[in-house]
């Protein structure tokens, strides 16, 4: 269950692609909410500048150690560095933006 949304790198400044991984455990209400919230936030603020991998730990438990996952759902910002982790179902948009260090897009 991999979602891919890639935008063409336009300029050097805009080349910063957000590489995000969302770890979930099964298709629970929290997982589904987290995936939906993440997609919405990325489309709103990072349109064309992000890539999301969703990893279900119940299917691939061996991947939990790599990103030091203990809580689910956990969103990991692998790029740009430094690595950031956001725990929870991402329901609070403002905190997600702060956590991912994203300037909110002027709507």
């Amino acid at each position, binding site marked *: 269950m991999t979602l891919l949304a890639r935008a063409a790198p336009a300029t050097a400044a805009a080349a910063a692609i957000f590489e995000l991984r969302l770890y979930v*455990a099964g298709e629970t209400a929290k997982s589904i909410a987290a995936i939906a919230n993440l997609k919405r936030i990325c489309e709103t603020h990072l349109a064309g500048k992000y890539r999301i991998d969703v990893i279900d*730990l119940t299917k691939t438990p061996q991947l*939990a150690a790599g990103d030091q996952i203990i*809580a689910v759902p956990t969103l990991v910002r692998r790029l740009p560095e430094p690595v*950031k982790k956001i725990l929870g179902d991402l329901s609070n948009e403002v905190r997600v933006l702060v956590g991912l260090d994203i300037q909110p897009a002027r709507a």
Partner: protein
Amino acid sequence: MLAERPAAPCKAPTGIQGLDEITGGGLPVGRPTLICGTAGCGKTMLAMEFLVRGATQFGEPGVFMMFEENAAELSANVRSLGFDLEKLAAQNMVLLDYVHIERSEIEETGEYNLEGLFIRLGHAIDAIGAKRVVLDTVEALFSGLPNHAILRAELRRLFRWLKDRGITAVITGEKGDATITRYGLEEYVADCVIVLDQRIAEQICTRRLRVVKYRGTAHGTNEYPFLIGERGFSVLPITSLRLDHKASTARVSTGIARLDEMLGGKGVFRGSSVLVSGSPGTGKSSIGARFVDAACGRGENALLFSYEESSAQIVRNMRSIGIDLEPWIERGLLQIHASRPTLHGLEQHLVMMHGAVRAFHPSVVAVDPISNLTLEGHDLDVKPTLMRLIDFLKQQQITALFTCLCSGGGATPEDSQLGVSSLMDTWMLLRNVEFNGERNRTIYVLKSRGMAHSNQVREFVLSDKGIDLVDVYVGADRVLTGTARVSQETHERTAAEMRRLAHHRRLVRLAGRRKAIEAQIAALQVEADSEAAEVNFANAQQALQEQTTQQDTQAMERLRGAGAAAGGGNGRMKERQFPT
């Protein structure tokens, strides 16, 4: 000790020396155990040894989930204890999982749970079929995760989950100010709680362990000293040792023939404990050295713990009294462990001794001197420590000799024995006797349980020919040793010789007198004989005269021819003639 009732929970043996004795067999199977204590008191070591011994001795694979150190650091740390985690990991007996949480990376938004941790742990458990799990220490999560409400709920779920999976788990926790652990983990882990503690007394650190709680089973409730030595963790439960050691009737020579003679002629019992006490310079160490020397000479292993001299110094010094220990060391029969008593706490010394005895299997052990152990502790502590040592040695049927230094000025050396003399089976006392401008050593056997022993004081002589005991001179009013004894003995020998000569002279004189008397007797006899002869002669002369007189009378009568009286006269004459 405790697990005989069927209702008692099953125990997972830890394999840790002493801990299984205290807990009556180990930690509760399929339940979490909390180990808590201050920083550096050995929580991780205890947990790790539980896991490693489970894997190596009991065939139970284990997962070590660590939150503070990474796998490489931990492997390096426990390698000093002889645990090869990398090898065990390669054999799939141990799985190390490092959980790292960087608080600065983490942001929270919305609901979450620790399912990730469960999945990781579950995956690790399944990967090697683990029966044992260590979480060291989950408290790190409290500093990593901001939402403690979630964390607490999840930890409760985690321990429940571990129980449901039948995992024997060890959870470590930092000691709190008012509570057993800083974050109150004891609330969730209620089955077994072990508290580790380290205390500094007079600059020496002693670690102690206590089983605070063990649900559903009796357990040792005391504080037990423990240490982390070369072979890992060891706890010293004193009360679990019972007085049930065998009593051998075999005898062991002390190495000094005359001393054996004082001990019923055969030496001390095998497996007994011997105390040699005395003031400085009385030769205690020499007796100890001779004791191990004699054991090595019989081909037995001997162990000497020295708290005053180094190994080389002992070898050199003992050579001066004709005891050469070096060949025994080279042949591996003798081991000398020399250390300063202040190096460790008493318990650590004890554990070192335990370790050395277990590794070397000696038949005799000498400790020189036990009194030095008091330098770094209270006398109160020394006795139980020694009691444990003596009991341990007795159980191993090892004959032990302890020397003990009495304070020099003590009026009665019997008083200054650290109160340990009651633990000893045989007690020999060495004393200095100063007299006549010199100092001499004396020895006597104060007690020796179960055997006839001499009540005599002997002089103890150290020379380049070795150790010997000499009878002291016991006169009417004094005991003499050394040159006084020698001079007294010479004096006595001279006096005896004089008496012998005088006696001979008297005999000769008496014999002379008897001879003189005999001569007198002979002379008198001769005189008597001649007197008797004189008497006979006189008698004969008398008879002859009478005869002659009668014959004359008859002749006269015949000549006169008397008529009237002739008849009568005839008759009388016939009668008279007859007897002549």
